[in-house]
């Protein structure tokens, strides 16, 4: 896999170049109404311990019952990762003591996960795509939460999350830079969101990453890795990779060796610090959970889920390029988010017509995205597809210029919210002046008033711009720029 090392990916050390090798374990909370093995709600927030069943609290004699919806979500995710779906998988117990782990073990899948090998295509830049291998995906229970800030001498436990279903998605060590690491998580999150199997909300902890980092000289075998636990934003993932790679290179260049460790990333200080070493690692005493039979389903179950899968980012991007003639870059930006992609398509096809797809893409990824960003909203919350379509149509049919369109957009974001751009243009008299008579009259007046400028323009044709500006000013910006240009050239004899 390491045959082609891109020089741009390498990190310059004091003694030469280094390559960073990254593999990731993503914990993605399954979108489901109830927990993996109990009927309790998975709703985020809520009073502590409001969503706790007898099973989640590990009361004596309680037994887990697998939630079929979580199984379907894991299979759908596996299909989205083009992965092997295992028709038989096994739940194991991972044994350790912790106050927020009521059973004293986590039910997970150890040797026989529900999903095997797959792959994700990652666009690192508009022109660079890499393939990241998926090692496996398995289902497991989330733990509860220990609260250490509620009392000076006691810790409290909130079991609302206890037993919520997680998918642990393990990548192969195919990632070679902080940038690739960020792009991988971004793409994986997009796929999960398209599938509706995880909301990808990193602030609420629905998506967390354990990042395995090692460094090596290009072409050499893998170095010793350190695992950075629970990184909770894409930006931090990039920073953590960067910081950890620098730390390891520093040690190696000073003649030291890397100790296999579990580490934490401190975003405030931009560095990782040791949590526990290999010697302190737990012996989890995994064994098959005797309360649960092996999880078995048939190919027909998988096929039915596959048939129902939505169009995923890669396919949508290819279709946008083929059907709408979009450049790869535009298509890539649009499909990064399913809502945006759907919105874009609704704009292109609004009212049963099909309009200039590239023009729509420019609006959606340009001014609209900026407006949405400023408002902290999604593009769909800013304008309706009908409004966008109408705006683009007004430009297309020459009713308004692109410049006026931006003014109309500003109005729609403010006092003209929910209005049809065509009405706004009509009511406010923003229609482009294409009547050559009116434009000619304006030009004649300006030419007559500025004989010196006319002379200058004859010697220096770029002076034309000054005249265009004057004409637009006198027509309130409504004159059709093409018409103004043509008529001016004619009048000035350029």
């Amino acid at each position: 896999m390491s045959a082609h090392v891109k020089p741009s990916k390498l990190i310059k050390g004091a003694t030469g170049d280094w390559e960073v090798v990254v593999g990731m374990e993503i914990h993605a909370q399954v979108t489901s109404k109830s927990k993996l093995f109990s009927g309790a709600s998975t709703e985020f927030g809520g009073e502590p311990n409001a969503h706790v069943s007898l099973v989640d609290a590990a009361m004596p004699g309680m037994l887990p019952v697998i939630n079929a919806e979580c199984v379907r979500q894991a299979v759908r995710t596996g299909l989205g990762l083009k992965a092997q779906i295992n028709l038989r998988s096994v739940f194991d117990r991972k044994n350790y003591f912790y106050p927020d782990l009521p059973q004293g073990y986590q039910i997970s899948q150890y040797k026989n996960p529900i999903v095997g090998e797959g792959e994700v295509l990652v666009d690192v830049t508009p022109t660079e795509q890499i393939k990241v291998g998926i090692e496996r995906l398995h289902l497991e229970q989330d733990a509860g939460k220990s609260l250490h800030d509620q009392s000076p001498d006691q810790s409290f436990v909130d079991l609302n999350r206890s037993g919520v279903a997680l998918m642990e998605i393990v990548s192969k060590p195919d990632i070679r830079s902080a940038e690739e690491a960020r792009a991988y998580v971004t793409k994986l999150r997009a796929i999960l969101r398209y599938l509706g199997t995880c909301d990808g909300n990193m602030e609420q902890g629905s998506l967390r990453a354990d990042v395995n980092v090692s460094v090596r000289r290009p072409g050499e075998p893998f170095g010793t890795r350190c695992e950075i636990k629970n990184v909770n934003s894409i930006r931090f993932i990039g920073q953590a990779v960067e910081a950890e790679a620098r730390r390891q290179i520093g040690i190696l260049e000073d003649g030291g060796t890397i100790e296999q460790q579990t580490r934490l990333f401190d975003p405030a200080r931009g560095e990782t610090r040791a949590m526990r070493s290999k010697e302190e690692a737990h012996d989890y005493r995994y064994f098959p959970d005797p309360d649960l039979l092996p999880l078995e389903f048939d190919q027909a179950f998988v096929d039915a889920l596959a048939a129902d899968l939505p169009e995923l980012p890669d396919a949508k991007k290819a279709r946008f390029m083929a059907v709408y003639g979009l450049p790869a870059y535009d298509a890539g930006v649009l499909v990064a988010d399913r809502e945006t992609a759907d919105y874009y398509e609704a704009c292109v096809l609004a009212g049963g017509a099909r309009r200039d797809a590239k023009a729509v893409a420019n609006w959606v990824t340009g001014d609209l995205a900026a407006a949405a960003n400023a408002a902290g909203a999604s593009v769909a919350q800013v304008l309706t597809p009908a409004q966008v379509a109408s705006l683009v149509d007004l430009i297309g049919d020459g009713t308004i210029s692109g410049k006026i369109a931006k003014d109309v957009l500003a109005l729609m974001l403010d006092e003209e919210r929910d209005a049809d751009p065509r009405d706004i243009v009509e009511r406010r008299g923003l229609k482009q002046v294409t009547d050559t008579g009116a434009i000619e009259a304006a030009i004649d007046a300006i030419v007559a008033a500025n004989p010196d400028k006319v002379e200058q323009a004859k010697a220096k044709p770029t002076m034309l711009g000054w005249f265009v500006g004057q004409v637009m000013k006198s027509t309130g910006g409504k004159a059709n720029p093409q018409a103004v240009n043509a008529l001016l050239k004619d009048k000035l004899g350029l």
Partner: protein
Amino acid sequence: MTRDLTRLTLAAARDGLLAKRFSARELAAAHIAAVEQARALNAYLVETPDLALKAAEDSDARLARGDARPLEGLPLGVKDLYCTNGVRTTAASRILEGFVPNYESTVTAQLWRDGALMLGKLNLDEFAMGSSNETSAFGPVVSPWRRRKNGAFDDARIVPGGSSGGSAAAVAAHLCLGATATDTGGSIRQPAAFTGTVGIKPTYGRCSRWGVVAFASSLDQAGPITRDVRDAAIMLRSMAGHDPKDTTSVDLPVPDYEKSVGASVRGKKIGIPKEYRVDGMAAEIDALWTQGIEWLRAAGAEIVDISLPNTRHALPAYYIVAPAEASSNLARYDGVRYGLRKPGKDIVGMYENTRAAGFGAEVRRRVMIGAYVLSAGYYDAYYVRAQRIRTLIKRDFDIAFHAGVDAILTPATPSPAFAIGEKGAADPVEMYLNDVFTVTVNMAGLPGLVVPGGMSSDGLPLGLQLIGRPFEEETLFALGAAVEQAAPKIELPDAWWAS
């Protein structure tokens, strides 16, 4: 007293209530009185007379309007491993001292659904780990049986077996009409054999485990202990059934087991496994087994010799699998959410103090064995090999059943009951050997029924075990009834324990 209602079988009490020969209240009151007088046996950990009388009144109302359910008004004891809503449940462990569940186990809920009522919670070995009921944190149960020497009883207090020692002693001493029990390696069948009662461990998956404190999940099964085979059949019908809350329970219809009692056993093929003739087995056990064979032959069954070659590996393999699962199942008793908590300097100190104070020696031993056999580097050598042996044991039985064997007859235990303190003090393995004939059945997930067969030379009961095909409990009830019919009646000593 002209009649003692506690002398009735469960079936006779049912029929008597239906015939209105006595009321449910009278029946309950007679048992409550018996329980109160028998505290010397230490069979009950909790007595619930008020609940019993209240339920009996409801039953009388139903009986009066001809609306009786299958177990209407029948007083039962419940092994304290079953969680009972609003009634203290301890698994006979300090670690659950004061624990009152707000839920009812599926099996007991089904008994109450069918009209039965609860007299109280019965003693057991702590977390069902033991073969003599001596590991209970609340003291041993004393068997109502006594050794006889030269025609006189001696004073030695005899164990009722374990872990369902409270259930067996209570049934034997007429402190309830029947009792729930559980069986992980013989915990229903060995105490039944020791107390001259009937016990059945049904096929794994026949009864729900939901709400029963877990010992070893892949081996645990609920079942009844009663005074005769018919009563066991009646109780099991109510206890069995599919439960969506236990995914290892099986969705098969529950037959009317009582119909099998008295059914002909003519032509049934009974396997006699030569490997059960173990070294050092008492001659009287061997003689009992031979007697059992003759009774079944006389009833028309065909006797065939079979081989279960992996039998000798069963006990060691069991004592790996069961502690492994137990070590994990008991991890939840950590002092954080319920039960005992002993503070420590930090969280680990709290765990250590709580578990050291809360678990008895046998439980601690098994938790440690279990953690050891699952630990990195030992897992393959112990746990994986034990599971492989388990597969081989199952296959031994499969081969026998495939060859047409309907059931297998063996002794229930290698010896009669012993005195409290007599066994296992120096070497726990001595105690574990009690399970040598019963653990194979749990390892293979099969049904096993124990019925009394006779008496030892010193006057203690001896039991015979019938092992059946999966989910063919009916065959066992038919065969068990045939043995019961043929066997001599054994007489319990007078109520020496009554205060």
